[in-house]
């Protein structure tokens, strides 16, 4: 927890306490923790002097600023029309099958979360998904297995 407090403090020193800094600060916490805990929100409010309710209210508006715990790797599968037409459901099934969890859930080892998201802007290379900030396009169920295996291997090394 002390670590968290230090981290938030440093962020506020870097970005400043005005309201325009709020989103960048929230984004940096999510990048590290993959979600905004109650503690993080309170700490940000304290350090920036922005009411905690406003910090929460802002965070909860944005789909990438999660306020529930997520895995180390957050998978967001595009569900908008072209991806839906080009096999999004098979991709989702392959993910669920490989990770043994359902859409919206996080693996017990806290490594992966599967979510759906709106248009990622890769309709010409559908179906597409994000794993954290990395983009994967023209997916097939086989590719999904390879991609996730690589992330697993990366996590094992750490």
């Amino acid at each position, binding site marked *: 927890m002390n670590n968290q407090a230090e981290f938030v403090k440093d962020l506020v020193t870097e970005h400043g306490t*005005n*309201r*325009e*800094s*709020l*989103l*960048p600060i*929230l*984004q940096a916490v999510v990048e590290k923790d993959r979600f905004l805990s109650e503690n993080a929100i309170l700490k940000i409010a304290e350090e920036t002097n*922005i009411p905690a309710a*406003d910090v929460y*209210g*802002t965070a909860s*508006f*944005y*789909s*990438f*600023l999660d306020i529930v715990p997520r895995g180390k790797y957050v998978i967001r599968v595009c*569900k*908008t*029309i*072209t991806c*839906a*037409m080009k096999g999004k459901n098979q991709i989702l099934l392959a993910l669920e099958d490989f990770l043994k969890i359902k859409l919206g859930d996080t693996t017990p080892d806290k490594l992966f979360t599967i979510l759906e*998201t*709106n*248009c*990622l*802007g*890769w*309709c*010409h*290379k*559908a179906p597409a998904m*994000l794993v954290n*900030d*990395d*983009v994967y396009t023209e997916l097939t169920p086989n590719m999904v297995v390879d991609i996730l295996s690589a992330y697993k291997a990366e996590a094992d090394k750490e």
Partner: protein
Amino acid sequence: MTTKTKQLNRIDLIFKNENDCKEILQKSFDRSHEEIINEMVNSGLKGRGGAGFPTGLKWKLTAEETEKKKYVICNADEGEPGTFKDREILTRVPHKVLAGMAMCAKIIGAKEGYIYLRGEYKFLVPQLRDELKKFHKIMDELNLDFVVDIFLGSGAYICGEESALFESMEGKRGEPRNKPPYPTQCGYLNKPTVINNVETLAHSYTIMKYGAKKFRELGVKDSWGSKVFSVSGDTPIPGIYELELGMSVQDFVDDFGDGDTKAVQVGGASGFLVPRKRFAKSHIGYQGKLTGVSLPTGGSMMIFNSSRSMYNVLNNYLDFFEEESCGQCTPCRVGCQQLLKGIKAVKRGEKPAAYLDKLLKLTDTMRLTAKCGLGQSVANSFSSIVENFREEMIY
């Protein structure tokens, strides 16, 4: 009646390999602000983000504001389903976009600019930062006090709406503001702000370089120039194409369709569905005097062949709107939910087919009473799909 329309014409301007931004800016800076604004106005360039507001006029109005602090913002939120051309422009020719921003800053008197980049494109940040380094060096050499930074979005389509975008940059929920006042008077931090789409800014560079007259050699009245289109769906050649404005949907389908095209969605989920029987009569451009329908567009062209269910398409769009509505005003928040529930009930036979007419009336109300473009434009796809493919909604 003969009006001017255009054959489908592939253009190579935006992505053309040109590395003379410094020279072009230098030349433009030597001219008077009035001359540059006139050049922009005369070009007839209209915003490429969807709404099609005349860019020269936007710059002029902001230049006339006496407030000391002003901003230039590049809208790279690109969240409209089926749109991906802005990312390509920012990847391949970011220097042209930045040159457009610098020109605008010089004219209106802004010292700070921002690129509002959607969170989904975060992977672009390192290369954009490299580009910004080069750009700021050019600004130094040209003696222009103008700095551009990147502001990242966090996954909210509504933040592409200009006033929601300002709210978001100000650290708040991305909820659109009432208009007026417009951004030219009261934008980011309530200061006069020019906000332009990525592509609009890149076209500004082209106009500075080649002049308004050259720009108007392409396109048709009220829709001058070329436009970058994002082509997806049932096409053998999905991708990004720069095309001359004014073409008919028929010509587009002849080139891009798979031979079995049933309908084309022009302008993304907030745009219109054009069924086959209207291909020949519909043209791509801004409001004007073309025969038939003239369809403004942010450049999203989604092609559907006869294997696709239009019910599924509409269901997908409504699902999108229902999730992305900021929830601030009732017609949109409740309207989107009711439309989604309504078409499902009709499909399942729980409501009679005539219920669709009630839903159409609801979209009329939304068009009139919703606070921003999101809620107002749900009617576009809803009515164009339900009216043209009514039987698919029922059976």
